[in-house]
């Protein structure tokens, strides 16, 4: 029954995160909160993983740390073998050319006084070896890549002249302008209308396929995670509580939190009241004892209050941090 994780062949790893901790001073009283609390994960070359979880569980904090807009308190972020976790200055700028973030809010993240073309030309000039007319051509190629056509017309528009979906495309184009290999997309569709969400998902999928980008897709929507990602990682209160191939996680969720999330998701078979009615935000205290989900778990046992379950393999591809499934 013992299963040896070393036997599994993994696709070549682009990003290897080990035991990452990000902490902030607690708002009230003393001590720290850790929205990222000993997280380990990998992202393969050309792989898209989805980070799914409760609001406040630390998804954005983790995403921003992966692209090193935040510095972790402890742990490692190996990017192509080099630990970028504590990089600063010039080294960090170099990393930012490889790793980009797409923000949640397509309204707030663009500069209202510049045309789309101007906003894209700046990173193109800085990061691509292009000059003069070539810059214009590169900008138009970028607009083409993200489906903003006719590109020559789109270039001259201001953000307020675009719809939400178009603005999100511009934000994606801007992230692509530096030719990154790795992108964190933080809830890129949650502010958009249902009818235009699919277009952005198709675009991200195309970029992954055609440009070979590796991606971390952050969401609290299981359906879009299933659509876009090969693997889903479920986060709760700063820890990964479940990970596995997207289909398995959606079809047979193992962790009680994943099961609750699925029950609450639109488009799932479930209807009727949820199995819990907690109103408390998750406990992020760095020195929390026991399982992150203990206060809300319908299956909580003695042991869950004393010991913290580690993320353990239940089979070759799946992991769960729950005493019901592993010990």
């Amino acid at each position, binding site marked *: 029954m013992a299963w040896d994780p070393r036997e599994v062949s993994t696709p070549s790893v682009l990003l290897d995160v080990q035991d990452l901790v990000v902490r902030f001073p607690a708002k009230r009283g003393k001590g720290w909160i850790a929205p990222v609390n000993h997280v380990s994960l990998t992202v393969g070359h050309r792989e898209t993983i989805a980070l799914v979880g409760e609001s406040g569980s630390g998804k954005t904090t983790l995403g921003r740390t992966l692209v090193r807009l935040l510095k972790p308190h402890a742990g490692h972020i190996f990017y192509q073998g080099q630990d970028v976790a504590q990089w600063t200055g010039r080294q960090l700028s170099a990393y930012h050319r490889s790793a980009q973030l797409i923000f949640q809010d397509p309204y707030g993240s663009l500069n209202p006084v510049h045309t789309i073309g101007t906003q894209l030309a700046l990173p193109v000039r800085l990061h691509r070896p292009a000059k003069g007319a070539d810059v214009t051509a590169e900008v138009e190629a970028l607009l083409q890549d993200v489906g903003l056509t006719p590109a020559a017309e789109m270039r001259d528009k201001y953000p307020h002249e675009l719809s939400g979906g178009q603005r999100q495309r511009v934000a994606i184009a801007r992230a692509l302008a530096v030719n990154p290999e790795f992108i964190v997309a933080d809830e890129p569709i949650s502010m958009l209308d*249902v*009818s235009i969400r699919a277009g952005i998902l198709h675009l991200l999928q195309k970029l992954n396929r055609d440009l070979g980008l590796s991606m971390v897709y952050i969401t609290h929507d299981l359906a879009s995670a299933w659509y876009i990602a090969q693997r889903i990682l479920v986060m709760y209160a700063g820890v990964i509580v479940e990970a596995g191939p997207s289909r398995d996680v959606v079809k047979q969720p193992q962790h009680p939190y994943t099961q609750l999330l699925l029950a609450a998701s*639109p488009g799932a078979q479930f*209807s009727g009241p*949820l199995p819990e009615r907690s*109103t408390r935000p998750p406990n992020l205290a760095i020195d929390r004892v026991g399982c992150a989900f203990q206060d809300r778990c319908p299956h909580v046992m003695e042991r869950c209050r004393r010991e913290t379950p580690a993320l353990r393999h239940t089979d070759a591809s799946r992991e769960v941090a729950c005493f019901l499934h592993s010990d």
Partner: protein
Amino acid sequence: MSESVPNDVVLSLRHVTIAYNGPPPVTVVRDVSLDVYSGEILGLIGESGSGKSTLAYAIMRILKNGTMTSGAITVNGRNVYGMSAEELRRFRWREMAMVFQTAMNALNPVLTVGEQMVDTLQSHLSLGRREARARALELLSLVRLDASVLDSYPHELSGGMRQRVVIAIAIALNPRLVIMDEPTTGLDVVVQRTILDEIVDIQRRHHYTILFISHDFPLVSSIADRVAVMYAGQIVEISEGRAIQDVGHVHHPYTQGLIRAVPQLIGDEPTAIGIPGNPPDPRNLPVGCAYQDRCPLVQPICRREGPQLTPVGDIVVACHVVQQEEANVHGLGSS
């Protein structure tokens, strides 16, 4: 089931047209007529910018920078636009209340939840501080918050808890009509679902009439008795809650698109189906149907004439193609 008089109309809109002041003025709600019956949850869905919040503000008579240029709005039989300022002040919150779209930030950050609730109660009812506090506690328990929330400041609560407080305040004076403008948008999926369960539960027990506004199609269709679909400032369909989830039922092509766009978790393969194109600019609407440029069924007539809301089977729909098909099926069709 409900003991209230069946079919009495709590909210009635007649040919409501609303424009924001220019220059030039922009009409964003066009000729909307709608009745909401006592004790029902009517869902109002539509894309961002379709005019849902504008309509809600007009009902509350709190439009800023905008005017109801024609039409009439009555709530509980009273003409909202025929009241004096003082009458209106008393009417609001007692007879009709609203949970605002930005409700999460609608609480005063420097007052405790208890202080805000007591203030609201005392400004409308002649209650002593003690009684008001007791009523506040009762309201909090309705939305499943415990007593400790009374002494908390808004920033000490999670988004979901703040949202519950705002809902508790909206129903504080037992209004007959509660307008909820995206009451759960931006919240976590699980929290959304819990709050919805609570809204339905409170509604069942207290028989509020609720106008529930959202652009989240599966969310609205899961709780509403009837759903009105808005597109570019007009209502294009009104259906029963059950019919609205059924793609096989007769629907407006926009509604069909929305139903198909609901992400599915039960199938074998994940899907992501959208509606191509973007909604029209209200400053620059096409002649004819506003949906023509995104519609897979578009016909020449759609580019000439705007369709009218007409009963088709058990729904009401504004679509030339759907109306024509229905006429053909029943052998009434010309060509």
